[in-house]
């Protein structure tokens, strides 16, 4: 489902070049549950942004569902983000003035889903994350965990084939983190492909496979034995 070949991402900082990724080749199948780990600055977010089609590599190829994404233009990438990918961020990235419902409706607006249909789908997604009773709340009127669940509802609303989460629990306390991870586990059980970036071993052990990244390169690719997994699978 995901296939990258020798991905490079280089930032030019004046005269200096920062290689955030140095030749990453990975392949992830449909239905997998993968965690990406690594120290701060190792390139985890950079890789996630590439996988999530938010950014394009400086060099190398990326195939998503057998389509070559690495050379697509802005609008083609936007269409892929809209249909194929649900992205959850550490900082939630919700529109502060909009209600939970409107935030969840957002991806639907851009693929032309209208009226009743849009509302119904957004409601359904909010119910899936157990927020059916908070639809008219604005982000400031919700707790951190609830905000992240709104963000997850938004990520799910278009039935994407891929769910990406960059440190989804990074801004949450441990109890709320467990809630969110339960939700992610549940989504995996329902057949979603999931990639999650985390610092924490406990969180990573929810996944079935752990990719370790070091200085922009894959250092280790481990399968987590069933006995060592966290959560219910």
């Amino acid at each position, binding site marked *: 489902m995901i296939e990258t070949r020798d991905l490079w991402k280089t930032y030019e900082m004046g005269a200096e070049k920062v290689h955030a990724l140095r030749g990453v080749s990975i392949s992830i199948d449909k239905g997998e549950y993968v965690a990406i780990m690594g120290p701060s600055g190792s390139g985890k977010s950079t890789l996630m*942004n590439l996988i999530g089609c*938010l*950014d394009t590599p400086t060099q190398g190829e990326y195939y998503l569902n057998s389509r070559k994404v690495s050379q697509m233009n*802005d*609008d083609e990438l*936007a*269409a892929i*983000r*809209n*249909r194929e990918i649900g*992205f959850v*961020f550490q900082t939630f*990235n*919700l*529109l502060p*003035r909009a209600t939970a419902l409107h935030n969840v409706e*957002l*991806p639907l*607006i*851009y*693929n*032309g889903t*209208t009226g009743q249909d849009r509302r119904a789908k957004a409601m359904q997604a909010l119910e899936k994350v157990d927020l059916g009773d908070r639809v008219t709340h604005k982000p400031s009127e919700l707790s951190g965990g609830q905000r992240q669940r709104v963000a997850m509802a*938004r990520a799910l609303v*278009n039935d994407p084939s891929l769910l990406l989460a960059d440190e989804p629990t990074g801004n949450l306390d441990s109890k709320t983190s467990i809630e969110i991870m339960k939700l992610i586990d549940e989504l995996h059980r329902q057949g979603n492909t999931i990639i999650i970036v985390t610092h924490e071993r406990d969180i990573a052990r929810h996944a079935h496979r752990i990719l370790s990244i070091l200085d922009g390169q894959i250092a280790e690719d481990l399968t987590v034995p069933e006995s060592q997994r966290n959560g219910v699978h």
Partner: protein
Amino acid sequence: MVVFSLFRIAVSALRAHRLRSGLTLLGVIIGVTSVMTIISALEGMAGAIEEDLARLGPSTFVVRHIIFITSDEMFWEKIKRKPIDYKAVELIENGCELCEKVCPRAYQSVTAKYRDQSLRDVFVTGATANYVDIVDFEVEQGRFHSFEDDLYRRPVVFIGDLVRETFFEGVDPIGREIKLGTNKYTVIGVAKKRGSMFGESQDDFVIIPLSAFSRQFGFPRRGLSIVVKAPTVEDLDEAMDQVRIILRAQRHVPYDKPDDFDMVTAESMLDLLNSLTKIFRLGLVGISSISVVVGGIVVMNIMMVSVTERTREIGIRKSVGAKRRHVLIQFMFEALMLTLSGGLLGIILGFLIAKSLVGMLDMQITPSALAIIAGLTISTGTGLVFGIYPALKAARMDPIKALSYE
């Protein structure tokens, strides 16, 4: 439709930033108001002149305390002038041998009523019976009022076609009673349809005997205007001189001072109209370019601030799949809504200002199609031209950079 959703997003963004939207509006309002004022005022003056022009013969001229103004010095001098009174009419009738016909007129706007129907802003002219001989309009039905009607102050009225159509569709109007303001008048005749000019009807007038007019309205606030006919075109200059001498004497104008009244012939009105049109075009081009720049800079400035301030929002929208055009359209809608509503307010405000300006000259003014079209075009143009850069900037943002913007 995606576009409809984007429109709604734009509306709520404008609502959320009321102060900013208001400031932007102000920029556009100022621009459009100035354009509107100029166009409406000039059009109002030119229109009034054209109307008379169309109906005067070549050996005719009009005398009034103010007919036209071509510079602002004249404006302040002319608005202080005394109106022409009945005494002047009498003096001209008796003292001007080359004045074959002398016809004083007075104007007033009223609401006309017939049974339960009413028509607002009907233009009432009070005139003597010879008006119909001098001014060219055709009688469709019935007759114009006679010398006796005027002498005995009979409440009779000759109506324009719009008035007939409004009140008497399918009925014979002759002999029916309509109300002009507070008084009742019997319809004695109907004018032939004149059609419309600049999208305004020329048929919303009624004419009553001058004596009946004075009885109802007293001495007209706007004074009288006198239409004078000389026997032939060759006598015109001579006749005008005679009138000039009579009026200067009556109004005690010192010999070294210019006339304190205006006199025009059809020909001189035509000249004036041409020069007004020229001024009008120049002024229009000048003022609209200034207003476009002023309004446009405000719009662009504020849209830039808005785009920068909402960088994260743009990042969020793009991250969930908004394409460039979605973001572009959203911000263009915002700019256009601002400039268009500013434009509409400017049109209204400009018209009101022009109305009070022209009102000081005792002339009539109606909203002109040209001015409204110009106002709308300018405001839409401003929105499009000055909104496109900020909107493009928003549309081209890189999602990752936008999301990490603090």
